[in-house]
Structures are given as structure tokens and as C-alpha cells.
């Protein structure tokens, strides 16, 4: 009798789960947020300048489609509520408005972002400017808008390093290490030399730069403070040194030394200038770069017979280089995506042309991302969504860039040629 009751109870144990339909979507078209940007209220000239810069910043990411200015409608507010229907009809996802406020010597911005689908304001922000820095103000605002809508940090307020070479009438070159905003504006010369400069590398805090200069008659690495111009050779040894790369904590520099006649990778501790050798084999080892967490190094090695990408795990006691690239006969100058999901590098395809390629860690094939003939020196933006690199067009070198979502842009030199770009970390 008791047993039956027990059994009975067990049998009717109910599934109290509740109907949840589970569907799967596999198809879609191309991504772009559709945004209407109303020119900010205030000084007309400033408003126009801000608007142009912000549009350019957002369009360059490839993830935004900004409504043409001619198609903008007046913003309707009734009883303190924004009327969204017009914007919905235009197919917009978001609306951005703002005001320019004069404050002492400078300008501040208030801006608002409205979600047209949810029919409500999703962001209200203020950006404080400083005198004569309207471009930076615009970049900060673009980044704020980008982050609010995508959840990803924007790179409009980051900066670039690159080398500029100008030849005079006698074909004599002057080389300059340049610093500029991420859109190429606001160029500043950090170093001017009659000897070549290559491989600029940002310190993680954006305050210093390391580079290779031939001023002493051979390749040597220098570190220079951006604000003061103070510079020093990284080692007093009379040996060739190149390929500097800063560790993410700023305490180490990985370098290529040629002490025994062969390019090998060393790590220099900046505090006391002690060197640790990382590679020791007969082939070329160079182009070292650190992983975002600082526990791995990617580098180029010729040990398999042709340049390929290898990885060293610094956490191991005796790290062994692990080969990472297997397609093609030339893979070099790799760097990690900031989330370590994959690597970007230079790849030579079967027809002998050089392109920028992407390989995701979990995939075993590479994706070719550029189409010119001699693409080189890729540098990844700190949010991992854009890459800047060097191309050659009509015998002149210039910079080009693309976003992973498919946007492309070019940054030609105002004078001469530009190459070897390096993208800074986030600076805000």
C-alpha cells in the first residue's frame, strides 16, 4: 500500500518546463547601423567642422551609414518627447543631436543619442574640450557615439606613427618619423634625419616611441619621449639592433640583434638593460611582437626554409617556438588581434604578390584582406576592427586601411612617400 503510493508520486513527477520555441537564423545581408546626425546647435562654422569630422570618423569604421545631410528632417519635439516616426520612415536606427557650448577659451559639447526602434534616448553625454583642439573634441564625440551604439571602443581619438621620405631635386632623401591623428590630420615631426628610419613602435602608454635609425651608419634602436623629444639608444653595444616591440606592461622591449652575424630575438628589460636571448638557430628570427596579455611572442622565422610565423609561450621555462602559419611560402610581420582571436600578417600568394591576411586561431585557413601588389607593414587598431598598412601606387608609397567590416580608406602623404605605420593604443 505504502509502496504504491510512493511509486504513484514518482510517476507523476511533472515537467514544469515551459514552452520555449527555439529558432535558428542563418542568412543576412551586410551590417551597417543607419544613423542620422543633426549638425550640432551653436556656432555654424564649428558645427560644420565637427559634423564633417564625426561623419568621416564613423563612416571610416565601415559599420555606419550616415544619412545624407540633404535628407535630414527637422527634429520634432512635442511635449518634451521626440517624434520618432519620421526617422523610422527614413529607415534610421539612431538619431544624434547635440549642442556646442562656449566655455572660456574652449568649446564643450553636449550630445544625445536616440534609439529609433526603442523610441527612447539612450545616451546623454558631455565632452570637455581644450583650446584649439576642435578635432580632438570631434574624435572623442565620434568615439562616444560609436561605443554607445556598438559596445566597442572607438579609435577616432587614437594616433598613428609613420615614416615619411622626401627626395629633393638631387634625389637625396630626408626621412622623418611622423605622428598624426588616426585620420592623418595634425601631423607632427618627431625626428628628421638624412639616414633611414624604420620600424616605429608605440609604448603602451602612448608617451614614448621606439624605432630603428641608421644615423650611426648601421641599424640601431632608439627610444624617444614624445612630449620632450628626449631620446637615447637602447643599448650601448656596438652591434646592429632592429625590430623593437614594446611589451604590454611597458617594461620590456623585444629586439632583433645580429651579434653572431645572424638575426636573433632578444628581450631587453628596460629597468636595468639586461638582455635575454629567445632564439638560437641558424636561420633568420625577427619581427617579434607581444600578445595583448604579454605572455606570448609572435615572430617571423626562416627556419623552415622560408619566412613563416612562429609563437613563443613566455610562461614556459624553456619556450619552444611553435609554427603558426602553414599556407604559402612567405608569411611575415604578424601581430595579434587585441582579443587574441587571430593574427594579421603579410602573406605572399602563389602569384608572388604580397597581401595583408587574417587567420583566426580556430580556423585552419587564411583570409586575404587586401588586393594591391606589394602590401606591407600592417598595424592593427586597438579595438581590433581596423588595420592600417602600406601600399605602393604608381611607384609611390602611401598608407591604406580597411575595417574588418569592409570599409576601405587611403592616407596619402602630403609630400613624398609614407610607410611603416604603427597604430597607438587607446589614448582617452
Amino acid at each position, binding site marked *: 500500500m*505504502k509502496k504504491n*503510493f*510512493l511509486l*504513484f*508520486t514518482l*510517476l*507523476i513527477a*511533472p*515537467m*514544469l*518546463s*515551459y*514552452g*520555449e*520555441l*527555439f*529558432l*535558428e*537564423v*542563418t*542568412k*543576412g*545581408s*551586410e*551590417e*551597417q*547601423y543607419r544613423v542620422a546626425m543633426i549638425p550640432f546647435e551653436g556656432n555654424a562654422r564649428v558645427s560644420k567642422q565637427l559634423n564633417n569630422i564625426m561623419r568621416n570618423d564613423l563612416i571610416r569604421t565601415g*559599420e555606419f551609414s550616415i544619412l545624407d545631410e540633404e535628407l535630414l528632417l527637422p527634429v520634432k519635439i512635442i511635449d518634451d518627447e521626440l517624434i520618432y516616426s519620421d526617422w523610422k520612415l527614413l529607415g534610421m*536606427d539612431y538619431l544624434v543631436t547635440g549642442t556646442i557650448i562656449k566655455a572660456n577659451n574652449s568649446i564643450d559639447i553636449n550630445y544625445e543619442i536616440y*534609439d529609433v*526602434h*526603442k523610441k527612447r534616448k539612450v545616451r546623454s553625454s558631455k565632452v570637455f574640450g581644450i583650446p584649439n583642439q576642435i578635432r580632438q573634441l570631434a574624435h572623442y564625440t565620434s568615439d562616444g557615439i560609436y561605443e554607445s551604439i*556598438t*559596445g*566597442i571602443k572607438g579609435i577616432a581619438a587614437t594616433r598613428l606613427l609613420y615614416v615619411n621620405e622626401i627626395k629633393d631635386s638631387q634625389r637625396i632623401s630626408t626621412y622623418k618619423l611622423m605622428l598624426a591623428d588616426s585620420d592623418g590630420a595634425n601631423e607632427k615631426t618627431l625626428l628628421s634625419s638624412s639616414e633611414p628610419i624604420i620600424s616605429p613602435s608605440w609604448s603602451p602608454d602612448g608617451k614614448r616611441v621606439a624605432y630603428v635609425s641608421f644615423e650611426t651608419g648601421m641599424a640601431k634602436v632608439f627610444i624617444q619621449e614624445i612630449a620632450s623629444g628626449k631620446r637615447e639608444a637602447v643599448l650601448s653595444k656596438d652591434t646592429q639592433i632592429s625590430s623593437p616591440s614594446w611589451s604590454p606592461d611597458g617594461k620590456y622591449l623585444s629586439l632583433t640583434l645580429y651579434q653572431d652575424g645572424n638575426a636573433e630575438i632578444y628581450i631587453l628589460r628596460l629597468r636595468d638593460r639586461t638582455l635575454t636571448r629567445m632564439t638560437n638557430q641558424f636561420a633568420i628570427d625577427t619581427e617579434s611582437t607581444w600578445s595583448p596579455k604579454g605572455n606570448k611572442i609572435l615572430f617571423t622565422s626562416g627556419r623552415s626554409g622560408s619566412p613563416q610565423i612562429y609563437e613563443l609561450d613566455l610562461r614556459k621555462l624553456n619556450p619552444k617556438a611553435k609554427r603558426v602559419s602553414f599556407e604559402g611560402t612567405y608569411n611575415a610581420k604578424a601581430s595579434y588581434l587585441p582579443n587574441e*582571436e*587571430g593574427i594579421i600578417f603579410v602573406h605572399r600568394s602563389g602569384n608572388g604578390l604580397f597581401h595583408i591576411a*587574417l587567420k*583566426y*586561431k*580556430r*580556423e585552419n585557413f587564411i*583570409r586575404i*584582406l587586401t588586393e594591391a601588389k606589394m602590401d606591407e607593414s600592417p598595424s592593427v587598431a586597438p579595438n581590433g*576592427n581596423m588595420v592600417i598598412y602600406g601600399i605602393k601606387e604608381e611607384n609611390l608609397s602611401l598608407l591604406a586601411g580597411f575595417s*574588418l*567590416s*569592409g570599409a576601405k580608406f587611403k592616407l596619402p602623404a602630403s609630400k613624398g612617400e609614407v610607410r611603416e605605420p604603427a597604430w597607438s593604443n587607446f589614448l582617452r
Partner: protein
Amino acid sequence: MIANHRYIQASLFSFCIHAAIFLYIYGTFDVNSSQSLLISKPLQIEIKFDLPSEKKKKIVAAPLKVDTSSLKQSTQDIVYSKTKDVSKNSKDDAFIESNIASLLLEENEIKADKEQQEISMYAQRIISSIEDAWMKPRNIPGDLVATLRLKIRSSGRIEGVDLIKSSGNIRFDNSALQAVRRVETFNFFNSIPRSLYEKEFQEIAISFNPS
């Protein structure tokens, strides 16, 4: 001691009665709904525009001991695809036994199949609406899957969206959320029978899987 035993027995009995009442109200004992419980387990319905793929065995089998054996294989492996005719599955499988119990069972099955057809039809419409609005990011790694949970009003208005499983890639997650945001309302929800809406479509899970 004996008093304790009695007491336990009585409370167990009382518990069973209360449980039975509760379950009756909940509907476990309705013949129909015990079969629809099978359907209301999370289904994975894939829309593929090419060939109906092999890996369809995604329906989580209901831990029901009741009636499972008499339902045919086809109703467990339901594939809702735009190219396949769903009704074919159920009609082909006819019961041959002539006794009344199985006839009754058959009648209930047909009801269940009809319901499944309806569900699949609406499911397809939901998927279409979202696919029209989904902007798939470029250059993302393969085999990413993001899963969202949607709360939908009977009018079809999407009340809430939650990312319940991130793909690990922000751009991909964003694109899924944006697609749902753009749809806003499933206009055809008015034509869904109220009971069916409450059972199946009030909360749904959608997985975005481009591979």
C-alpha cells in the same frame, strides 16, 4: 511510533491529492497537452536554403515516459524547412491497428500534427522577418553562434531581448541584437490563436548561426 507512520502516510496521501489537483489544473492529464509537451520542449528549427541538412536530430527528447513509443520517428525528427513539405511526414505514417484506443491515439496525433504545422508556419515567418533585418558581419570567424531570448506580446511587439549565449565576438552579438531591434513587431501575430501564442510564442529563443 505507529502514530508517526500513520501521519506520514496521511500527509503523503494528502500531498498526492493536492499534487493531482494542481497538475490537473496545469493540464498534465489532458491527453492533448501531454503530447504537446513533447513539442514545447526547446526545438531547434533550422532554416537552410540549400539542401535539408543531415543534422536534424536537435529536438531535445522529452523525458516523458508516456506515449513516446507509439509516436513515430518522424514526429521526433521534425525539420521545418522552406523546401520540405512538413505535412508529408505525419500523413505517411498511418496506424493500421483497428482498436478504438489506437484510433483515439490517431485522432490525437493528427491534432498534434496539425498544431505542429501551424507552429512551423509561424516559426518560418518569424525567421523570415529576422533574416530580412539581419546584417551579418564580415570577416568573423566561422562557427559562431549567438542565442537571444525574446519576449513577445500577443500583438507581436517584441517586448524584451536578452543575449543568453554570446558568440564570443562582439560584432556578431551586436548584429543579432540589432536584427531583432529592427524588426520591432511581428505583424502576423494577430493571426496566431491565443492558446497557441501563450503556449509557444510568448517567449522564444533564436540562435543566429551563419555556418
